[in-house]
């Protein structure tokens, strides 16, 4: 009766459940789908924080390498190799984060930094939202790139850099990589927001999406970084834990604002009060865009009112926000755009197209939507994908985040 308790498999399972519920007799069960959406949300939180941490750590390493590049070239090679050992262990834990070695550090760097920036933005906004809901002053600092990267990454690195809830997973010792404070450095990185580190307050540190790893001594940030805060409460291993300030409305009251980042299209979509507007990332013109792996991407403009791509109908008489789901990512997606989340006052229909599921990831940030899609017109839909395939593709779109990095 074992099962993998990692975020990705949970997301996959949850999506499968939602998909199959649409074909079950008796119609969609609101209660069950609501509960599944909570699990999805929780898994997504963890996934986000893991990705962010990893990107951040890579950023760290690249900067290190940058500095090393001042030195005689043969050192560079050394450092690349030096960086590498830190990778595989975490790569293993990160699943699709297939960090191969190699690639030019410099070429990799701007893209990675860029990704990091976007992810950072996303996470910032997300945390701010939590803040807003739970009045926690501190977590903002968690997202701030103030402190050095956590330990060299043996095991699951599901920590936020600088977050005091950092604990080297399984108590593994540092890999010997010196920790450095992240330098604001090159442009796309935002200035560290209220530079306070993740705080001493365990509740706030809990808000920093603490890892699933069993507690261990928090790594010591290098000079310049504030000392870590009190460790997250002890937990039983194998449970994702501690990411929430009690009570557990974490991320649920997303009615104020939620942001979703699509790294493939480099579009940041913000949902506010149920209405979407697009904050198109300035990097839409970024040279990195072209190099991003065009995969089946997250549908970016979930419910965007503005037509992002031609050819999509928009429901004029929607009283709620849902326009069409966006956007084919630039590379062209296997999923046709589909209508989303127009909830009218009737029980949700069964069987909207399965490709809706791929959009669920982005939708879920904005609350309970996505489960109550109306049946789209059959004309605009491709043959529905079965749930399994769809979940994989949805997950693949999650993995697209890292694919972009790997490409460099």
């Amino acid at each position, binding site marked *: *009766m074992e099962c993998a308790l990692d975020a990705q498999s949970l997301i996959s399972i949850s999506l499968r459940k939602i998909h199959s519920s649409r074909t079950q007799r*008796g119609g969609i069960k*609101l*209660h069950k789908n*609501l*509960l599944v959406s909570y699990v999805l949300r929780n898994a997504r939180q963890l996934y986000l924080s893991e990705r962010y941490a990893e990107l951040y750590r890579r950023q760290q390493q690249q900067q290190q390498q940058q500095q090393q590049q001042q030195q005689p070239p043969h050192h560079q090679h050394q450092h690349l190799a030096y960086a590498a050992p830190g990778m595989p262990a975490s790569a293993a834990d990160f699943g699709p984060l297939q960090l191969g070695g190699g690639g030019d550090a410099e070429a990799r760097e701007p893209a990675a930094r860029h990704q990091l920036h976007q992810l950072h933005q996303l996470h910032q906004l997300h945390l701010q939202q939590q803040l807003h809901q739970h009045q926690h002053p501190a977590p903002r600092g968690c997202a701030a790139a103030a402190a050095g990267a956590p330990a060299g990454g043996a095991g699951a690195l599901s920590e936020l850099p600088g977050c005091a809830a950092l604990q080297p997973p399984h108590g593994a010792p540092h890999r010997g990589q010196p920790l450095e404070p992240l330098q604001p450095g090159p442009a796309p990185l935002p200035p560290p927001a209220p530079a306070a580190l993740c705080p001493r307050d365990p509740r706030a540190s809990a808000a920093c999406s603490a890892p699933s790893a069993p507690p261990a001594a928090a790594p010591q940030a290098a000079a310049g970084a504030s000392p870590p805060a009190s460790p997250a409460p002890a937990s039983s291993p194998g449970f994702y834990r501690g990411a929430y300030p009690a009570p*557990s409305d974490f991320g649920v009251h997303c*009615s104020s604002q939620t942001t979703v980042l699509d790294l493939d299209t480099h579009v940041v979509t913000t949902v506010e009060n149920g209405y979407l507007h697009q904050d198109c990332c300035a990097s839409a013109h970024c040279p990195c865009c072209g190099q991003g792996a065009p995969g089946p991407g997250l549908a970016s403009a979930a419910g965007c009112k503005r037509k992002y791509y031609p050819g999509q109908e928009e429901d004029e008489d929607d009283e709620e926000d849902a326009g069409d789901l966006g956007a084919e990512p630039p590379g062209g997606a296997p999923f046709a755009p589909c209508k989303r989340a127009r909830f009218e006052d009737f029980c949700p*229909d069964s069987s909207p197209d399965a490709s809706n599921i791929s959009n669920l990831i982005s939708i879920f940030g904005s609350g309970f939507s996505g489960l109550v899609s109306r049946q789209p017109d059959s004309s605009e839909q491709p043959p529905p994908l079965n749930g399994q395939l769809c979940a994989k593709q949805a997950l693949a779109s999650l993995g697209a985040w890292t694919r972009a990095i790997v490409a460099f």
Partner: protein
Amino acid sequence: MELKTTRADIISTVEFNHTGELLATGDKGGRVVIFQREQESKNQVHRRGEYNVYSTFQSHEPEFDYLKSLEIEEKINKIRWLPQQNAAYFLLSTNDKTVKLWKVSERDKRPEGYNLKDEEGRLRDPATITTLRVPVLRPMDLMVEATPRRVFANAHTYHINSISVNSDYETYMSADDLRINLWNFEITNQSFNIVDIKPANMEELTEVITAAEFHPHHCNTFVYSSSKGTIRLCDMRASALCDRHTKFFEEPEDPSNRSFFSEIISSISDVKFSHSGRYIMTRDYLTVKVWDLNMENRPIETYQVHDYLRSKLCSLYENDCIFDKFECVWNGSDSVIMTGSYNNFFRMFDRNTKRDVTLEASRENSKPRAILKPRKVCVGGKRRKDEISVDSLDFSKKILHTAWHPSENIIAVAATNNLYIFQDKVN
């Protein structure tokens, strides 16, 4: 303990009537089966109090909502009896969308001697009728017939999860995921909406109603539970729409138990007033809690039903067991509470002695007049003889529905498609 089993479709609800003379079950096929207790007879002491089938009828049929392209399941979600006021019995049965009031009555006489019809009911040729006679009632074999007296339809957009008869015996309520409606038994084309938690923007939905019940004595008071583990007590005298609760029962979450599935396991699956009306009992996935109506910030008692499942939540999520909705019941004196578990186990907790017992409802382990043996689940380490390890529990055998006789120690336990009735015979 005496045992009686009967096979049927998967049982979805079990309910004794107010005297305990009748026991109704509803199943997934939309059928209702009513058992009646044998009358005591002096010469057959052993057969005293056996339950036999009294009536069977099809309560609900599958429907299709063409407007919404939705199939409506015929599964009976709940049955509630009305108190008996004349020779007939009345019960409410509901599926996801429609509540029906059924009259169950006996017929032991039939009229004979019609003029215009013959004994088989065929019309007679008027030309052959030469005399007139007055029809008379003659005894016949007892026939129990069930007739639908009222159909309360089209009032629920979401799936009905509860019905509850008010102590005034004139009204009842029906609750779905987001709304609760108040009905008068006589009026089928109108109902009052008394609770509505549907948010203006469905994206903001965070909780649903999971169960609702009227207070046993105060006809203005009812409670409803939510998927967030909270209970609200409402007073209908306060306002027409009881969106604002009078009392709010919630226990703060234990942050050290936080997991991916915290929201799921805190969702309340059943809420029941005690017979006294002083307490409410709630069931969530792993525990049963007793609350005092006068204390809102935490329950007065918490009982672990199967805490060994806490480390298995991920697997239970995968196989959907984590969504199982267990019910809970009080005994007649409110001293013992009972609820079901997996592997056909059910648990009883004595509130006074704080002792609990795990019993199993299975054919192999139960013979008529055999004493039920307490069972034990072994959590870790060495497994003793007769213990069952957590990993060998059969999660397809779940006891979701149980009922307790209102005054005697007779319990009905529904194990998938089998109904077990256990009686505690003191003498």
